[in-house]
């Protein structure tokens, strides 16, 4: 186990650096100049040539790409007011990813990206977590049920529904939910933001109720696609488990059917689902961009997307680095779980 873990951990850093490098290059190659984006400094009107010059040198945009990347990576600050070893004034010696400092936004220089990301994550993470838990809570029983009842009339209906749900675009589903339940349709649920106007004056549980009412549609929109995917996968691995010999053995021992299905088949069928839990993580991050755009929620996805439109390099790099890091860790976790459960992988 130790050797396997060490081998995997050794690959973590190169993978992470590879991702940050690719993102870095893609961001720089995208057309558009962050210094020229409208509204990067609303107080001063149109920026003068000197302002642009200052902006570029402050963010090292006039330096070679390699220097820019090393500055982003850290731990040394290579800007004019950075580390003394590299010709800076020594005011701000450490910066970059390796110094765990994400810097400030391009657009609003007084906003620290790490703090802003924390604020945005506090919105996105609970939504994604709710969506993930909801998807799992429905998908596992549903998948197991349809494997056990394979071929029945009702199961075929469910299979068709799941297949369709899996095939339709997420943003379309979200828009249909808005059209159907929002003001233009049944008018049952609010479709904009996470709080009503004036929600801060509500009492504790009224405020919570307001929040819950606002989150139902976004969570549904996030969860439904993953739910269909998960349920179909659980059904597949459950079918495989039910055909194994240990299930026949358990049955011939005279164990009740419930025990055979829950203890013997389902437990083994859930093992591949560990990796799936990880695979839907990038999907949830990607989905949050769309869902937050449609429902007007100020979360991380929306933040990253706005930064992309504004060419705020610092924010794009920080967000992609963070999500890549989390995904890599989750992949590692899944593989380690797998290896722990299956000796063939450990020693392979």
């Amino acid at each position, binding site marked *: 186990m130790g050797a396997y873990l060490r081998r995997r951990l050794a*690959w973590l850093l*190169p*993978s992470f650096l*590879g*991702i940050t490098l690719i*993102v870095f290059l*893609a*961001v720089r*190659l*995208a*057309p558009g100049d962050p210094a020229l984006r409208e509204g990067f400094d609303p107080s001063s009107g149109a920026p003068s040539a000197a302002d642009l010059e200052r902006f570029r040198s402050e963010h090292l945009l006039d330096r070679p790409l390699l220097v820019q990347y090393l500055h982003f990576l850290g731990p040394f600050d290579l800007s004019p007011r950075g580390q003394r070893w590299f010709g800076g004034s020594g005011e701000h010696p450490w910066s970059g990813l390796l110094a765990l400092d994400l810097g400030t936004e391009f657009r609003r220089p007084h906003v620290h990206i790490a703090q802003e990301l924390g604020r945005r994550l506090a919105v996105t993470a609970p939504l994604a977590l709710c969506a993930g838990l909801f998807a799992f809570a429905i998908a596992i029983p549903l998948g197991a049920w349809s494997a056990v009842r394979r*071929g029945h009339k009702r199961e075929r209906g469910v*299979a068709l529904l799941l*297949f*369709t749900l*899996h*095939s*339709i*675009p*997420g*943003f*379309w589903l979200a*828009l*249909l939910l*808005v*059209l159907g339940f929002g003001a*233009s349709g049944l008018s049952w649920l609010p479709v904009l933001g996470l709080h009503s106007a004036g929600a801060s004056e509500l009492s504790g549980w009224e405020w919570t109720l307001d929040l819950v009412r606002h989150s139902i549609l976004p969570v549904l929109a996030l969860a439904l696609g993953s739910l269909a995917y998960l349920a179909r996968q659980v059904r597949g691995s459950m079918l495989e488990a039910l*055909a194994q010999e240990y299930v026949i053995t358990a049955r011939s021992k005279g164990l009740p059917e419930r025990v055979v299905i829950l203890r013997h088949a389902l437990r083994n069928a859930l093992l591949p689902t560990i990796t799936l839990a990880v*695979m839907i993580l*990038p*999907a949830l*991050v*990607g*989905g949050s*961009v*769309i869902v937050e*755009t*449609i429902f007007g929620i100020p979360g991380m*996805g929306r933040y*990253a*997307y706005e930064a*992309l439109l504004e060419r705020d390099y610092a924010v*794009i790099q920080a*967000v*992609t680095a963070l*999500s*890549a890091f989390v*995904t*890599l860790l989750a*992949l590692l976790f899944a593989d380690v779980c797998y290896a722990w459960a299956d000796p063939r992988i450990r020693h392979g």
Partner: protein
Amino acid sequence: MAELRRVIGSWRERPGLWAALALVCALHALGAAAPLVANDAPLWMGTPAGWRWPALEQLEGGERFVLLLAPWILAAPLWAASRWRARIALGWPALALLVALLWQLLAGPHVFIPAGEWKRELGGAPALFAPIPFGQSETNPSEPWRPPTWLASSKIDEQGRYEQRAVPSSGGLELPASRVEVRAGEPARNAPLRHALGTDAQGRDLFARVVWGARNSLTVGLASALVALVLGTLLGGLAGWRGGRADVLVSRAIELVLCFPLLFAVLLVMSVGGGGSAAVWTIALVLGLSGWTGVARLLRAELLRLREAEFVLAARGLGFSELRIVIRHALPNALAPLIVATSFFAGTAMLVESAISYLGAGLVEPESSLGGLVRGGTEHAWMVIFPGLVLALAVVAWNLLGEELRDWNDPRLRGGGA
């Protein structure tokens, strides 16, 4: 050819698979034939000087070739089922290419005519129009945001006002009513099929835009699937056959690609995507570059198994070169999972492309894709529902094909019914 035949089986054994195949082919044929399905230029017109074919005259070289391929795509399930399929399968595209080249030589390059120009110039000459007589970028300034014309709420009176409501639903502002302009070849003002799917902000016919948008979306799906297939076969083959260091590197690369969320695809499209119709191909390339992992993983697993198979050992014992063993012996046996993964990926690529276009980073006007059409009018039900339905139909078709292929090629599932 024989291997492919085995992978898709015969239609008697697996009707569902063939239905899915027919649906996929029909959709793509419709996309390829879009200039004859929805066009503001007449297909044929009889001027005093002689006959003209405006819809064909304004096609570019590549579009002519694709148009000639349309019947071939539509008939693909037929030729796959018949005995003389190999000759037609290869012969028709070659013939189409030849015809397109001759066409280019004899008729010269395409004529560019602004949208709607033909209808005005037509005068009283006899003409034959496409089933949807509107172009994708032909505007109808008197009919912005018109609901589908078979709805009672879309009826417009003589003065250009909606009969049922005083205020057209355009952001709450009352537009100065103007009489609806019915041009040559168009259905009457209140004909149920005038704008069967409604219109957008500039009064462009949504049906025509859905047809042309579907053409772009389907192209992205198919092209990126082919890129993924080629790249995945190369890298997955290398990893599975060579093993060792190549395997480790490819596996890490797969992991790396998995870490890129949708947002990153948007970013990449933004950074490499040129304008105009070339953007379709850059988007397809980007999606293919991020989608090869599925194919590579499956092929790798399959080759790891086949590497030790007895027929491979026998081929090696006969002294065949490694390349020959891989191409002639191992790959044909791993064909089924490759095709299954490619089919699923084509559906996924269409979903990702639509999400990118919905976010506004995909194709630019006047080119459009199904996701971009939804973006154009999220507050109007018809602008959301119809493009989304067509998109869903296409993705369902690809996924259904993948599913049927997988079930057919999995001996444990064969005959059991899914």
